[in-house]
């Protein structure tokens, strides 16, 4: 079904200089649009954050790129080709809640699943695959847990296993849905270190993120989403209080972290109450 939708664009090369190029994408559940007329460009080699309130459609955007939901309209190109032809070049770390944690499978097994695509049909994973999977587990610091059943891990550990699975896929575009949710500070720093290393190897990463405070420290590209795209571009240009306020609407006062003390955004509306309550916290953390 999904294949037919993209028939028109089959074979056509479109914007090959972009890692991800989305045109006029609309996705609805039960005729209620949750993504509306999205135009999005992600250049290769950036570490990009997707930010927006709960229900903004961040996960849906990620799923649309992966072909897991069927768009009502629009086109998605990955490295210049229709995304459904490029799925193997995409690595994906799902949001935690979407997995059956009781499934009879071990940590090592889950990581090896990332290699199934390279194996193709019927061929079994062997020693080489085990080694690759162990290497990836080593990288995320989870090698000691390789024989555990996946429900016997903490949330942060589970997250790292799925990160390892994405690593072995050896993709070029990585989509990560809140990889930092529910992990402690050390693990978060570890994960972001890995992501930055991937970027330095020329990979492109699109990360759904929730903590506004850490945005400038972690990312170099920013997409603000709330059903529509509010703003997108290099983080330095997009990370402004005005943009964030537009994204989060009236919830702005409730936010944990705000752009502050960095000069640019604070200068835009220095008298803001939200800024004043948030600024001391932002300062205290660094």
């Amino acid at each position, binding site marked *: 079904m999904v294949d037919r939708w993209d028939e028109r664009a089959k074979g056509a090369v479109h914007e090959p200089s972009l890692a991800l190029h989305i045109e006029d994408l609309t996705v609805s559940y039960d005729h209620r649009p949750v993504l509306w007329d999205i135009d999005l460009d992600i250049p290769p080699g950036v570490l990009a954050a997707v930010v927006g309130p709960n229900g903004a459609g961040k996960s849906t955007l990620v799923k649309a790129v992966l*072909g*897991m939901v069927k768009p009502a309209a629009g086109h998605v190109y990955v490295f210049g080709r229709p995304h459904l032809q490029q799925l*193997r070049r995409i690595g994906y770390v799902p949001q935690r809640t979407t997995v059956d944690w009781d499934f*009879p*499978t071990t940590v090592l097994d889950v990581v090896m*699943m*990332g290699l*199934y695509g390279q194996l193709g049909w*019927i061929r079994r994973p062997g020693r080489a695959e085990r080694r690759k999977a162990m290497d990836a587990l080593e990288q995320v610091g989870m090698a000691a847990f390789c024989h555990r059943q996946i429900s016997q891990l903490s949330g942060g550990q589970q997250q790292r296993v799925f990160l390892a699975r994405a690593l072995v896929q050896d993709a070029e575009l990585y989509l990560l849905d809140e990889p930092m949710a529910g992990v*402690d500070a050390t693990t978060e720093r570890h994960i972001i270190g890995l992501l930055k290393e991937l970027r330095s190897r020329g990979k492109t990463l699109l990360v759904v993120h929730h903590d506004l405070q850490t945005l400038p420290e972690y990312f170099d590209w920013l997409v603000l989403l709330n059903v529509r795209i509010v703003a997108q571009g290099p983080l330095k240009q997009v990370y402004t209080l005005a943009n964030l306020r537009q994204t989060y609407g009236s919830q702005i006062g409730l936010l944990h972290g705000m752009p502050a003390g960095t000069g640019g955004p604070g200068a835009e509306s220095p008298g803001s109450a939200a800024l004043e309550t948030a600024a001391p916290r932002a300062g205290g953390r660094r």
Partner: protein
Amino acid sequence: MLAAFFDNPELMFMTIGALVGVAASVLGAFLVLRGTSLYTDAISHSVLLGIVLVYLATGEVNSPYQLVGAAAAGLLTVYLSELLTSSRLLKRDAAVGLVFPALFALAMLLIGLYARRVHIDADAVLLGELAFAWLDTVPIGEYAVPRSLVTMGIIALADVLFVGLFFKELKLATFDAGLARALGFRPRLLFYGLLFLTSVTAVGAFDAVGAVLFIALVIVPPAAAHLLTDRLWLMVIGGGAIALFASAGGYWAAMRWDVSIGGMMAVVNGLILLAAFFLGPRHGLLARLLRGRRQRAEAHVRMLLVHLYTHEGDEQAERENAALALEHHLRWPAEQARRVVAQAEALGLVTSEPEGQRLHLTGAGREAAREVLEPWRRR
């Protein structure tokens, strides 16, 4: 010798039952994990429609077309149910519950109207009659081989081959359909393949064991195996082994007490499930109970360590770190305090001098206490 084997009804019952059991449970592992074991119920009822329609078209009850027709009816059930589910008007179980009784009723209606003379009666379909299955034979070489044995042998082989060949693909499609699709596999196709084989197996199983036992064999052995292991391949093989054991045990019990063979097979399967539920090493009730107790004990030892650690060095240490003070400060009854201290001592985390009086942390004990207080040190 072989002739004696085929002529021995007891061995035949057991072999056919075992074949059905292995075939059903191997497929069942994936259906159970996918949360769609209800489809088994649906399929095994609605295949009757396929059987009836093929009979009305060809006038034969035992043709191979029967398998095709029945499998088609089974897939139709699944397709309609998925369609209703994806419309989001109904939950999956409600959708299944709506579709298959309708198809089953249609089949009964058609039998009532046009096929009254044929021996497709509902009881035979639902309960089967293993005891007669061996009477209907086909000649193979010089032997008269029971038809059920031949069909079930072929079907079981097909099922095992399918699961063996596509094990990796089935695993991925069941665990993470999204990734399966992204990596270029066809999870929907695999799923329908699985259900196609389930339908075929259901038809093959009818003659021998009937729909009710078939449903039990699809669901119960894999469910029991899941309670016993955390590896998918062990769950699949274990499910098959349980089914084998249950068919032998069920047969033996049926002979012993002179009751229905099929019924006894279901009973043995049920008993194994029950045993796994209580005694399973990880998910079993008993294991959970013991684990809970051990974890409570460990938590108490940790509390003791932290208590000693926080008071180490301050001037109250003399008073706080006495075994007697534990009753007071941790609100532990004397008996419990003594037990926890003994445990901590046995683990080499705490020493006391004089015996049971003043408590000191050992190096390991101090390390363990700091690990609790500073979890980020652990890595």
